[in-house]
């Protein structure tokens, strides 16, 4: 005589899903904390076609409409910027310099930063924009 065992229905362990989700959450939170940057309130210039200019090592210089220069949320002078760029390039020659300037900034203020880069013979600079919808 054959005995038949009652088969269990296959189920998805829902409880484990929330555990995995929380682990993922912690992981992503840590990653975003690493990427955290001190934003300076500016109106980004707009362009329809922009390429991603972010690399592994980046140095961001923010220029406000008034011409004030910031790095990591702290106000700096052009001389400080020069020192920062030198330190960053010495630490990693592949560092990319990003200029995040307010769209209404008079060009003379941005030219000041570009001149520092030229003096230091830093060749590549990224002008950061926000992508606008095509008209």
């Amino acid at each position: 005589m054959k005995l038949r065992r009652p088969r269990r229905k296959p189920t998805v362990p829902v409880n484990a899903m929330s555990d995995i989700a929380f682990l993922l959450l912690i992981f992503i939170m840590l990653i975003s904390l690493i990427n955290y940057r001190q934003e300076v309130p500016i109106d980004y210039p707009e362009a329809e076609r922009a390429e991603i200019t972010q690399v592994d090592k980046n140095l961001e210089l923010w220029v406000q409409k008034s011409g004030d220069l910031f790095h990591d949320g702290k106000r700096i002078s052009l001389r400080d910027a020069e020192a920062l760029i030198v330190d960053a390039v010495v630490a990693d020659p592949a560092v990319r310099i990003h200029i995040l300037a307010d769209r209404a900034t008079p060009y003379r203020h941005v030219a000041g930063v570009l001149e520092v880069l030229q003096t230091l013979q830093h060749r590549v600079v990224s002008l950061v924009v926000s992508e606008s919808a095509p008209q």
Partner: protein
Amino acid sequence: MIRLRTKRRERQDVAASGVLSDLAFLLIVFFIVIAVFNVNSGFLLGLPQKGSVTTVHVDDLMRVEITSDDAYVLNGSRLGVAELSQAVRTRRVTQPNVTMAVTISPDATYQSLVTAVEIARSNDVDNFSFSMAEER
């Protein structure tokens, strides 16, 4: 004696209901979006060495001036963004090696420079140079 039997409601396990996982996934999406916002996009420019001189054929040179009121001036006439883009496109057909030399007023806005760079890039102009006009 009459014994009343009340029906107790079954307690639902919070974790088993799937609410927590939904919440966690929403938070994950939020943090992914935040992380994506931090990626810089824009234009990469190669800066020339200070004081360096580049020789360009006169026919290939296209001088554009950006005035203090953000107008683009080409050959003495003020152009809008679309008109300048069209002019660059037309010029590039006749002179594939066209060099766009932009002179920017110190009072012109940064946006006007970005727009000029975008016009050069969208029309495949490889040679692009910009400098600040001397202050009067």
